């Protein structure tokens, strides 16, 4: 499942970008760190024999979603709003403790489940054509529901974003 050196370099970049997003005081910097994180994960998808998912990751996540984020940040002038933590310092320690506890719990599960590793399967055909066939053979109903979800969210955004009539018009 990929070259160890490539994996370590990509993992290091991904974790560093994630930490950069977490600690940046400027929201624009956070968004750009997140773009770097998404791009790194897209490269990992390509390493994992999922080139089409990698391209979707770049276009949809790093392209569309993050542009939306940056647009809202700049629209609101929110790049300097909100400190790293609230006024209470105990929240910071509690959050750190909870995050470490999360990693420990997952780590225990990972250590216990380590025995099921039966070696990697042979690479499968993951071309866009094969993915499309699988999508429309086994997931037609979820696909239709996805369409309804997108329409609903689109209407919701239009309703939310509309200015109230007669209010600071």
């Amino acid at each position, binding site marked *: *499942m990929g070259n160890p050196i490539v994996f370590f370099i990509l993992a290091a970049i991904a974790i560093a970008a994630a930490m950069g997003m977490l600690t940046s005081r400027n929201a624009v910097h956070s968004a750009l760190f997140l773009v770097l994180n998404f791009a790194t994960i897209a490269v990992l998808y390509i390493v994992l024999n*999922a080139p089409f998912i990698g391209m979707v990751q770049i276009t949809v996540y790093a392209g569309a979603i993050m542009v939306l984020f940056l647009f809202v940040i700049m629209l609101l002038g929110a790049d300097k*709003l909100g400190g790293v933590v609230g006024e209470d310092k105990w929240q910071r320690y509690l959050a750190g403790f909870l995050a470490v506890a999360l990693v420990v719990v997952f780590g225990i599960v990972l250590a216990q489940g380590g025995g099921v590793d039966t070696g990697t399967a042979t690479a499968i055909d993951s071309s866009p054509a094969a993915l499309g066939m699988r999508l429309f053979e086994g997931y037609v109903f979820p696909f239709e529901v996805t369409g309804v979800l997108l329409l609903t969210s689109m209407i919701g955004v239009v309703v939310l974003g509309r200015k109230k009539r007669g209010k600071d018009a």
Partner: protein
Amino acid sequence: MPDVTIDWYVALSIILFAIGALGVLLRRNAIIIFMSVEMMLNSANLLFVAFSRHLGDLNGQVLVFFVITVAAAEVAVGLALIVTIFRTKQSINIDEINLLKG
């Protein structure tokens, strides 16, 4: 040089998920909290693709599509909510958003 196994990807996914959760808990800027949620969704996607490769099963990659779609819808609605809140309160600090009716 050891081979890269599924466990390495699970570990990377765990770390990214924990950093995302830490961001949700620590930060007070609603936009940053949304970005952290996106990162947690992404770590789950990475796990889907890694197991898809590990088991030689294409279904994991199809599920990633649905996760990306739901994430896109969620971001659109969430950012619209943030813009609406900012219009009324002139702030997106979640410590100051404490009223059900603003």
